[in-house]
């Protein structure tokens, strides 16, 4: 099949891809208005360069790539503006988790959630708390965490796109997890 003959029809984009693109972005950014703007900007940007669409990838892949760049811009912008305050707060939260000697402090020690053995993925109440706890994370941490989990991106890609050093990457993943876990323990048990 000759890929070049695949034509793109912008008048059909909204009907075909708007929900998909919206869901894609909405899972990655928890801000409905902002996400709608991104979807609109994606279509408009695509219109500008519709001639460069050569049918090498599917229309959906092409549009998603444009959207994804916009999402990463948002991550970058957000994490550079409020980098100090929200990360400082989040780090303060976990300051007392371990003592000088590196041991868990008694009051912060993990205790069983009661769901460890059997994976209780459909537990609505737990999922709700999980979502709330994720929203409390610093923007940069959540961005790293999200890219790692939904997109299963390599650490190198995430580091490059979010401008995080590779040594800092695992520290961020770890700190995110410490706070997320502690938040779950506090609100679930």
């Amino acid at each position, binding site marked *: 099949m000759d890929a070049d003959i695949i034509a793109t029809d*912008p*008048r059909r*984009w*909204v*009907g075909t891809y*708007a*929900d998909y693109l*919206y*869901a894609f972005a*909405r*899972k990655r950014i928890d801000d409905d208005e902002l996400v*709608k703007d991104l*979807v*609109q900007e994606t*279509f*408009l940007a695509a*219109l500008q360069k519709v001639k460069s669409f050569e049918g090498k990838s599917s229309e959906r892949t092409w549009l998603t790539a444009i959207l994804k760049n916009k999402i990463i811009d948002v991550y970058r912008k957000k994490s550079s503006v409020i980098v100090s305050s929200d990360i400082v707060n989040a780090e303060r939260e976990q300051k007392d*988790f*371990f003592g000088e*000697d*590196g*041991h*868990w402090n008694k009051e912060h*020690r*993990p*205790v*069983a*959630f009661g*769901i*460890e053995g059997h*994976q209780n*993925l459909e537990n609505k109440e*737990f*999922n709700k708390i*999980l*979502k709330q706890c*994720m929203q409390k994370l610093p923007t940069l941490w959540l961005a790293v*965490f*999200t890219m*790692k*989990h*939904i997109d299963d991106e390599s*650490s190198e890609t995430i580091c490059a796109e979010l401008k995080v050093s590779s040594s800092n990457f*695992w*520290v961020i*993943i*770890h700190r995110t*997890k*410490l706070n*997320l*876990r502690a938040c*779950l323990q506090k609100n679930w048990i």
Partner: protein
Amino acid sequence: MSALKKIIYNCRQATLLLDKREFVKLTFREAIELRIHLYKCGVCKLYGQQTHIINSMVVHLFENQEYRLDDSFKRELQARIDEELNKK
């Protein structure tokens, strides 16, 4: 304190390795150190289980959330695109 002793007694380091292990293979040394720590430390063992469960729940949450645009927004979007196209 030697590096080995450090990890054996250090929950902070052990939990970092547990989080890392969810995504990459630990080095031989890291894996041994972690195993020794976990042998002694039930609290970190529990942390390891929880960090794994949290990961699968996060992935599940992302995958199963359904989002749909409201129709009025789609109509506006369509109008906007039509307008751009008609300019050309």
